[in-house]
């Protein structure tokens, strides 16, 4: 059974056995979105950003302030320019030279499988589908559906005037449907996959593998945001510079945001040998963990993750050559050792910190599963060289402390919106 939380602009839970009705409504409604000037869409979303932060019922929700910043016109324009090169392609054929012109047409219905670990993920996914003028059917985790519905309700109530015409957020929302169904239900998953002109899949290995094995339309494009891992690297000069304290403060926030469940969350920090011992660095981090606001410090954590944290702490207490810094509760954990390797993520703000001889040891640890390295190398040229090599080996993003979760484009090595459109060509007869 499919539970549809949003259809045709109505936020009412309805049950369906298949996606026929939902797909018909979205196919019909996406035409209005396609005809909306791209700049009007940007304006509506930017206005949404301002409204979200002003609404006391919504702005207290975790992640809303970041969404609001992300929706600023300048940011949206930058993202779109990175993806499309020229945003006019979304509205019309743009001459490339005398002989042909190009345009970007939406693919149709974009079916999205949204992972549960990040409450804001559904919004970012939908925003990109809107900015590529596609219709959306998003499978959202039940626990996050109210959050995303609240944001879309706000969008429904927005209208703007653009070149003398009124454009309504409601028209955008009518091209979106939110659904929930049991992911293990193969028949519903199969129908969902076959509805898609484009699939966007977020999730862990098991989920990704099973979704990719589903049948799909021949023309269907698939974007996969699969399992990834992130960590941080500090060289000696950086550690001994004036920037270090601020970097530690910011990286502690990076660890805390999303309770370390995101693919962009640092799991290990490598510190080159410096004038500070690993314990001194750990104690500095302890100070910043203690300063975290209560909402970030104490986040609801699955008992299985808590059990993993307890096990990891004990492993480091029993072992030779390791140590831990912890509060009495499980709000955060620092595990210290000198083994230069990546560790299986534990989550729940459990960070491995490791002292290493040289940051170059880290290059050999890089796989294509590494999404972000928070790279703290003092020398600009050295940082660029390291970044070039690390990205060659598989890293998608080289970031600075405090910015690992910034939803940049490209993401996971992909320019998503560029792939959410069909690039079409109009050839002209040569002038006689």
């Amino acid at each position, binding site marked *: 059974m499919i539970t549809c939380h949003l259809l045709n602009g109505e936020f009412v839970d309805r049950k369906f056995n298949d996606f026929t009705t939902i797909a018909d409504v979205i196919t019909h409604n996406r035409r209005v979105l396609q005809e909306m000037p791209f700049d009007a869409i940007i304006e509506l979303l930017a206005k949404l950003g301002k409204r979200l932060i002003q609404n006391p019922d919504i702005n207290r929700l975790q992640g809303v302030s970041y969404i609001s910043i992300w929706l600023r016109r300048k940011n949206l324009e930058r993202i779109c320019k990175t993806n499309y090169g020229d945003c006019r392609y979304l509205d019309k054929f743009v001459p490339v030279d005398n002989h042909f012109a190009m345009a970007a047409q939406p693919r149709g219905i974009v079916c999205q499988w949204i992972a549960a670990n990040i409450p804001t993920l559904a919004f970012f996914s939908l925003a990109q589908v809107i900015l590529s003028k596609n219709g959306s059917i998003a499978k959202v985790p039940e626990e996050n559906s109210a959050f995303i519905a609240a944001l879309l309700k706000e969008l429904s109530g927005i209208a703007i005037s653009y070149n003398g015409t009124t454009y309504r957020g409601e028209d955008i929302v009518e091209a979106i449907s939110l659904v929930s169904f049991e992911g293990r239900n193969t028949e519903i998953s199969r129908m969902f996959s076959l509805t898609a002109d484009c699939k966007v899949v977020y999730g862990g290995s098991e989920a990704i593998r099973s979704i990719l094995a589903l049948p799909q339309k021949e023309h269907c494009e698939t974007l996969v945001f699969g399992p990834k891992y992130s960590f941080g690297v500090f060289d000696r000069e950086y550690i001994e510079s004036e920037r270090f304290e601020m970097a530690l403060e910011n990286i502690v926030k990076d660890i805390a945001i999303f309770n370390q469940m995101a693919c962009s969350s640092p799991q290990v920090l490598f510190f080159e040998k410096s004038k500070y011992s690993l314990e001194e660095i750990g104690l500095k981090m302890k100070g910043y963990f203690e300063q975290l606001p209560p909402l970030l410090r104490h986040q609801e954590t699955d008992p299985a993750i808590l059990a993993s944290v307890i096990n990891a702490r004990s492993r480091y207490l*029993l072992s030779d050559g390791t140590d831990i810094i912890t509060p009495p509760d499980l709000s955060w954990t620092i595990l210290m050792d000198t083994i230069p390797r990546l560790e299986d993520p534990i989550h729940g703000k459990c960070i491995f910190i490791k002292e290493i001889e040289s940051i170059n040891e880290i290059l050999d640890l890089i796989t294509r599963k590494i999404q972000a390295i928070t790279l703290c190398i003092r020398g600009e040229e050295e940082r660029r060289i390291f970044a070039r090599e690390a990205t060659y080996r598989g890293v998608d993003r080289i970031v600075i402390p405090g910015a690992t979760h910034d939803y940049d484009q490209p993401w996971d090595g992909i320019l998503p919106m560029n792939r959410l459109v069909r690039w079409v060509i109009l050839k002209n007869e040569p002038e006689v």
Partner: protein
Amino acid sequence: MMMNSNLNTLFQLPAYSFLNDEKNQVLLPIIRGQLEEAIKNNHYIANLFLKLHLSPEKILCLEEVPPIPVQMFKYFDLKTCPEEQIEKILRSSGTTTGIPSRVPLSKNTTINQIKALKSILKDYLGEKRKIFLVIDHEGINNPLLEFSARTAGIRGLSIYAKKTFYLMREENGELMLNLPVIEELLLRYQEEEVYIFGFTYIIWSTFYNQIRKKGVQFNFKDVKIFHSGGWKKLKAEQVSKEHFSDEVARIFGTVRENVLDFYGMAEQTGIIFVDCECGNKHVPSFAQVIIRDPYTLEPCGNNKVGMIEIMSVLSDSYYCQAILTEDMGYRVGINDCPCGRKGVYFRFQSRIEKVEVRGCGDTFRE
């Protein structure tokens, strides 16, 4: 020697006769002494105390004894006596990780475990040895096989047996009724006092289904049915504990109150927590149970669900003094269970299930 004499005194008393505070006062010095030895004999445990800036003499109450998670038995040698005193290593099958636990046993520990089990079973079965019926096949008790929850129950409970019968046999990897044995029991042993053990899911999914079809009904003079193991599969089949007990009792011609669920683990062999007639699990005099909040790690009050920590004084050969399980339960009360047993009484709720992280941040391996 002093410690052993203290322990022997504990074994001689009825298992549930101590008021909780009295028991804590008796256990604390024994545990302190055992921890001193553990630190002397095991550098991992010495690391633990050193890093926690803790020494046994500073421990003022049982809650302050640092618990070691049960998973650590998979990764560390947690022996607490000189190597030459270790007689055997108990290997418990690793159901979640596939890595077995290793529990080093000295002669003294094994004797203590047997005495402890006898003391517990005496409270439920009385003084006399009885016929022991096992709802499993004989091969499960092969000493060459790794220890599992199934073998633990059989071996533990068999110490009260004057004769043992296995009610199942294995055929092509499947459990079938051991009909010759069942016929012999029906013919010759109906007037006997018996006690029975089986793994909860095996009793329900194989034994009960098959014996019901055969229409077999036992009618022993007296019977107690012990069962152990998770309820997860039965819950999935929507079988309640009450329905299970009623149906199993019917097969053996007895009442629900004689079907006794118990909770135990290989790492705390010698101690089982058997349901009393009120459905509560009681802590015997040589052990303690603390329910800890999984987030604050503080001890929980009554009725608050937390992680079950089991403390024991039975072993001088491995760290049994405080083991944090991955099971959730809650304390029902202290000293005042209507069944009359003293001390802490609690209920098991569920295992902590390993979850697949429902997101994208999960691995670095290609």
